[in-house]
């Protein structure tokens, strides 16, 4: 029941350019969320998904830590939200592909395992329900943004 999400993208931009988009706080704020990312192994940071009272969404903080940072090849950070995504990790691997870049994306570690016994076990149930609801709202908004 372990699960990971994998995607492979072919991008026309060179690797250094793609690296700037994934390993830079300002760029990450453009296509992800406001954050205090720094390209440095061991750096703890957060993505702050903003609240939207209109739809009853009270915001969400994703806690992360840079695990690997090898410009312009590889960026890995942990991805931690309450509940079963507590120990997941997000990785970007960039390979040159002609004048462009092949991007290998993976979000792994959805194993639903809780690290700390009963208390966390109860937290997991709450976490699942909360994330399910909140993500639906966020995704609904994103879909509404599309033309």
């Amino acid at each position: 029941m372990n699960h990971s999400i994998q995607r492979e993208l072919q991008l026309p931009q060179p690797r250094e350019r793609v690296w700037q988009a994934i390993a830079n706080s300002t760029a990450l704020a453009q296509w992800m969320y406001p954050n205090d990312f720094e390209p440095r192994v061991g750096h703890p940071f957060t993505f702050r998904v903003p609240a939207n009272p209109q739809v009853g969404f009270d915001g969400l903080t994703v806690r992360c830590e840079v695990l690997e940072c090898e410009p312009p090849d590889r960026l890995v950070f942990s991805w931690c939200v309450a509940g079963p995504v507590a120990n997941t990790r997000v990785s970007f691997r960039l390979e040159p592909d002609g004048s462009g870049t092949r991007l290998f994306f993976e979000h792994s570690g959805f194993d639903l395992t809780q690290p700390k016994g009963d208390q966390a076990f109860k937290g997991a149930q709450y976490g699942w329900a909360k994330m399910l609801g909140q993500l639906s709202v966020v995704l609904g908004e994103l879909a509404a943004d599309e033309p």
Partner: protein
Amino acid sequence: MVTSTREHDVFGAISHPARRHMLDLLASADHSVSAITSHFKMSRPAVSQHLRVLLDAGLVSEQRHGRERRYHLVPEPLGPVRDWIAHYERFWDDHLLRLQKHLSQTSEP
């Protein structure tokens, strides 16, 4: 929050690694309690307790075969779990699309 009590039961049931392992076993074939126990270091009563949680969540059913009970996987209640992962898949598909847009907007000629 629209998540039902039953969904909470399902998420709770699969949050234990031993129970996930049991579901994996039952996904390949129906098993008796003793056959399941042979795959674990825990006692038979402990295995039975985990099976009870899975039964209560509707993830397995039991049938009598002579003197033993055999357990059978009922995958349908796992739907919400798959939905949840699917939400995350869409989340990343949307954001990777945004990354591509970001790159095409900021690319130098």
